[in-house]
């Protein structure tokens, strides 16, 4: 039991000395994860939309070539950044840029470098998620939009992407949570995130386990909070399940249907026009029946007459 007491004491000691560093680390981690995820989503959406532009054999060859080229470039981007570790991407970009441009171009701040790396990494994952999200929307939605004359861009922005966004919300949440944790590798380029605060603290105090406990609790709190907020956001996007009927404007009720049997409408069987036409129909049938009956009687009489004439002939 006294081990726990010791742990608590150590944590208190750490917090007293490095509390501010931990907190600013948390702040930096959250900002980096959030900005990276948002920019990554934008990249993902752009890639997803470019990837799903339809083309047919009847299109201009140049258009087909460019669309094909775009798909190839996106494919390479996705495979490269999804297939290499983010920690290496960070080193590669942060040190590679000055290396290739003889120091004329380099990241002026570690923030810029970190945001770029996290964004393009997230973008590579999101490109595939968005593509999946777009495919998951019923093709009928696209046809409906096309049928009222929308172009591909209009169809995407008005109809498909809002639905795709809702469908991939869980995936975006996943990416955000992964980013909260995985930005810890940014210490490699000296980014002052939450994990960097741990490294600084243990470098001076050698309290590895207590500091790790603080880190564990801190990351778990961030991710739990994030998933809670995401759930709430999803619910909000779905909107309320009830809707209001507009009933103040009586004019709107002029064209009711069978759903409002107690009100008159042009399409209703209670409509005077409809009633009249039904009455007319009934009358017509009655007349027809009478005519048919009379015809029948006449035929019967004729037959009887001819019968009697025949009999008379025999006689």
């Amino acid at each position, binding site marked *: 039991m006294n081990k726990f007491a010791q742990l608590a004491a150590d944590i208190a000691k750490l917090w007293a000395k490095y509390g501010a560093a931990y907190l600013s680390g948390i702040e930096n981690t959250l900002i980096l994860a959030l900005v990276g995820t948002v920019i990554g989503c934008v990249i993902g959406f752009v890639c997803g939309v470019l990837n799903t532009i339809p083309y*047919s054999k*009847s*299109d*201009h060859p140049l258009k087909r070539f460019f669309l094909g080229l775009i798909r190839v470039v996106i494919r390479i981007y996705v495979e490269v950044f999804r297939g290499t570790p983010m920690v290496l991407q960070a080193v590669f970009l942060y040190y590679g840029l000055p290396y290739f441009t003889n120091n004329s171009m380099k990241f002026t701040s570690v923030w810029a470098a970190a945001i770029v790396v996290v964004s393009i990494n997230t973008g590579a994952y999101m490109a595939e998620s968005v593509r999946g999200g777009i495919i998951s929307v*019923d093709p*009928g*939605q696209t*046809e*409906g*939009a*096309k*049928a*009222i*004359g*929308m*172009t591909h861009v*209009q169809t995407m922005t*008005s*109809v498909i992407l*809002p*639905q795709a966004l*809702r469908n991939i919300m869980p995936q975006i949440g996943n990416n955000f949570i992964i980013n909260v944790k995985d930005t810890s590798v940014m210490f490699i380029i000296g980014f002052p995130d939450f994990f960097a605060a741990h490294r600084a603290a243990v470098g001076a105090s050698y309290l590895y386990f207590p500091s790790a406990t603080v880190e564990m609790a801190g990351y778990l709190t961030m991710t739990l909070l994030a998933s809670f907020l995401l759930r709430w956001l999803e619910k909000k996007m779905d*909107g309320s*399940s009830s*809707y*209001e*009927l*507009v*009933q103040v*404007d009586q*004019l*709107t*009720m*002029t*064209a*009711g*249907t*069978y*759903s*409002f049997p107690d009100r008159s*409408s*042009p*399409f209703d069987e209670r409509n005077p026009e409809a009633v009249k036409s039904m009455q007319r129909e009934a009358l017509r049938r009655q007349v027809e029946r009478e005519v048919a009956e009379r015809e029948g009687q006449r035929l019967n009489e004729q037959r009887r007459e001819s019968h009697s004439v025949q009999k008379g002939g025999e006689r």
Partner: protein
Amino acid sequence: MSESILQINHLSKTFGTNQVLRDIDFTVEAGDVISIIGASGSGKSTLLRCINLLETPTSGEILYHGRNILTRGTNAPAYRAHVGMVFQSFNLFNNMTVLENCVVGQVRVLRRNREEARTHAMEYLERVGMAPYINARPRQISGGQKQRVAIARAMAMDPEVLLFDEPTSALDPEMVGEVLSVMKALAESGMTMLVVTHEMAFARDVSNRVVYMNGGVICEQGSPEQLFTNPQRPETVDFLMRFRKN
């Protein structure tokens, strides 16, 4: 022939090795209400989808006011804005309310301002009896109601021709009537309509021309009286007989 809205010449469509449409010829004049009947798989829906360029025909031409729309430079979205379509599966936009469904096309495609588009949409929503439901989402209303909204959405674009692809086939029997009566009112208002349907009573009573398709060709066409009371081709007789029995 300059007054006909649509003229279709030698239209063919092949899916792989399967020839769905063969050498279709027919014209649509302003004010026509044409019913296209025929067994499943006879190419009725494909014909309609070709007319709206949702499918690209393999050969032949479709003249819209005398201009062939199957040439490479055609602006398909601009053409589709003039030719409305109502689908079997409604295809309302699930992320919008009933009213937004009818407004979005006018605002984005026809560049009307939002207020004007709203008024215009309300006019048609009233005509189809869906005005009280403008705040509802598609998932909250019944199939018949969805189809009536879909008709209002198509009409709000002020199309020249309205294509109906089996508009009542996905509906429960008790909802068929409300959609058909809306379509009937539309036909009586002078709208040019092309209706693929299995509702023989509608074809007989509302349309001025009935086209019977069989095996990807137009087998017989004529006025409803002619086709229903005095069909000339044995296939037509066969088809109508089967329908009477059901």
